């Protein structure tokens, strides 16, 4: 029984990580109709921000270093949020109302982000800055006459291409210097040391140890969920966001700047991904491929929980987390050794982490046969138009 309880706790913490990761995705999907396949890579950025923060805090001495993780969470939120806002302003904005297209374009973004983390170096950063600045300058200072020409769009595309090539040449030129061209992170995994107060046990209940990191993640996700709920229901921006999602046109007519609302919504969703990424660093080493491991589970949470519903997201992620930890670890078999053979064989078959995914999927497909819109469907006339 103790085993089951500790597996339950484990499941809750797996579920909490899923919840952290899925909340941001659910906001972006449910409120804006954007399928963000780069969400996992935004998590990755959050993880790397944590890593950088740790390295920055390390020389500051033992006492302050212990607090680095709290700062990392804040940095992860804001830096990833800003990346999200940039993404929304440049790319996502072109694709509203075409969810399948957002899916493909954000996949492209995710590839770029993965490779960026792998190979970013000082020389590369300089090259990118050079290219972007040149590109903008070219657009900015193009003669007005040229701008009206019918071939201007092609010309401006060409200007961007030339700037990119110049940026690339700059990178190549700078790569002569070992110092400048050394990748900051490289393709290998990075490790984050959890501060001491997170390591070890936080006491015990009824003889069961409460591992600090797991409890911390559960608390963090609860706290963040509370923050999201507060932000959406009580703050002014939350009101604007809800208003825009429920009736975009009228909100616009009432004076709500809908494009800013879009940016902020996407920024918040991305920021949450950053925090999730920061939290994941506590569980083990992370690398550029971190995103892929989480993205599909996050989407499963959304499909199961119903779109645009925080309660559904919570229940679905906890359910998936618990199924994974109880079945996937084989804990049931150890706890109840006397299960008769046919069912025992079935449980054994699914008793690996990989196979528990299979089980979860069968469960979800089965569930969707009865409730195609998820546990908590959106009600109202406008659902299927």
């Amino acid at each position, binding site marked *: 029984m103790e085993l089951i309880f500790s597996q339950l706790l484990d499941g809750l913490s797996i579920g909490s990580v899923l919840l952290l990761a899925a909340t941001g995705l659910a906001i972006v999907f449910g409120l804006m109709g954007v399928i963000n396949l780069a969400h996992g890579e935004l998590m990755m950025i959050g993880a790397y921000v944590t890593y950088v923060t740790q390295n920055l805090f390390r020389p500051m001495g033992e006492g302050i270093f212990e607090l680095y993780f709290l700062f990392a969470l804040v940095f992860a939120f804001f830096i990833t949020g800003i990346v999200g806002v940039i993404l929304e302003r440049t790319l996502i904005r072109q694709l509203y109302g075409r969810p399948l297209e957002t899916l493909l374009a954000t996949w492209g973004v995710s590839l770029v982000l993965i490779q960026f983390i792998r190979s970013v170096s000082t020389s590369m950063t300089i090259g990118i800055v050079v290219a972007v600045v040149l590109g903008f300058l070219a657009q900015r200072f193009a003669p007005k006459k040229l701008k009206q020409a019918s071939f201007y769009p092609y010309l401006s595309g060409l200007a961007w291409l030339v700037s990119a090539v110049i940026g690339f040449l700059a990178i190549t030129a700078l790569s002569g210097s070992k110092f400048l061209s050394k990748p900051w992170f490289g393709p290998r995994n990075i490790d984050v040391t959890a501060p001491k107060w997170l390591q070890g046990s936080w006491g015990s209940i009824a003889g069961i140890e409460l591992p600090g990191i797991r409890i911390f993640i559960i608390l963090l996700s609860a706290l963040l969920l509370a923050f999201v709920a507060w932000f959406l229901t009580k703050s002014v921006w939350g*009101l604007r966001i809800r*208003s825009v999602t429920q009736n975009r*046109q009228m909100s*616009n*007519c*009432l*004076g*709500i*700047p809908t494009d800013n609302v879009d940016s902020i919504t996407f920024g918040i969703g991305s920021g949450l991904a950053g925090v999730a990424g920061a939290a994941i660093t506590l569980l083990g080493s992370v690398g550029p491929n971190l995103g892929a491991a989480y993205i599909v589970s996050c989407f499963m949470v959304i499909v199961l929980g119903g779109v645009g519903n925080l309660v559904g997201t919570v229940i679905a992620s906890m359910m998936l987390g618990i199924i994974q930890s109880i079945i996937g670890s084989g804990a049931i078999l150890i706890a109840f050794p006397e299960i008769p053979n046919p069912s025992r064989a079935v449980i054994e078959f699914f008793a690996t982490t990989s196979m528990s995914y299979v089980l979860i999927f069968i469960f979800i497909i089965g569930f969707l046969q009865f409730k195609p819109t998820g546990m908590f469907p959106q009600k109202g006339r406008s659902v299927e138009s």
Partner: protein
Amino acid sequence: MVQATAPASTKTILRASGLNVYYGESHILRNVDLQIPEGEMICLIGRNGVGKTTFLKTIIGLLEQRSGNIEYDGKQLTSQAPYKRARAGIGYVSQGRDIIPRITVRENLQIGMESLPGGMGKNRHIDPLVFELFPILEQFLNRRGGDLSGGQQQQLAIARALLGKPKLLLLDEPTEGIQPSIILDIERAVKRIIQETGISVLLVEQHLHFVKQSSFYYAMQRGGIVSSGPTSQLSDDIIEEFLTV
């Protein structure tokens, strides 16, 4: 048919000239000219589907004209987003009322203040005037907007628009599908607002009694203005042609 004329007043808050508006391929508004004098209520009449709502949507910026101009408060409105027009003082009460359904009445009212300088972050206090005009709203402050009845929603929509202190209020069929008693409330409220604040109103309406409260009318048919004049001259023929079944 009555000769089309323009209202005599000198100062206009809004002047639309030669507007042509399309929905995809279908030509909805054809060369519409219309003027709204400052501080008066003007009425736009016509049967369902002739383009009245399209006209209001073009003014607020939900639709863009293919040709023609809209001059508001001395400035041209060209491809400005609706929220900018709202902040410039155009209030809009749409035909479906468009109450934001899953937020409370209080929040709906707060959103009305978004078009004031500083937005609703700086303007949190709901002007008691709206509760004086529509007492029912004060009672239902904490209900969800979508749970109100049609008439209550209409009052909320007007109150919401008023909280933005507009210079020009666009009302799209405020009495449609509403009990007569509430219609009178709404009529009284609109008249009082015009008297007290001096705003201009463009009313799209079918309800004859309400139409007669305005000073000037424009009648629309198949997307064009076909008749206009002071409401006092609104003859039975015109009523028969544009308002009845």
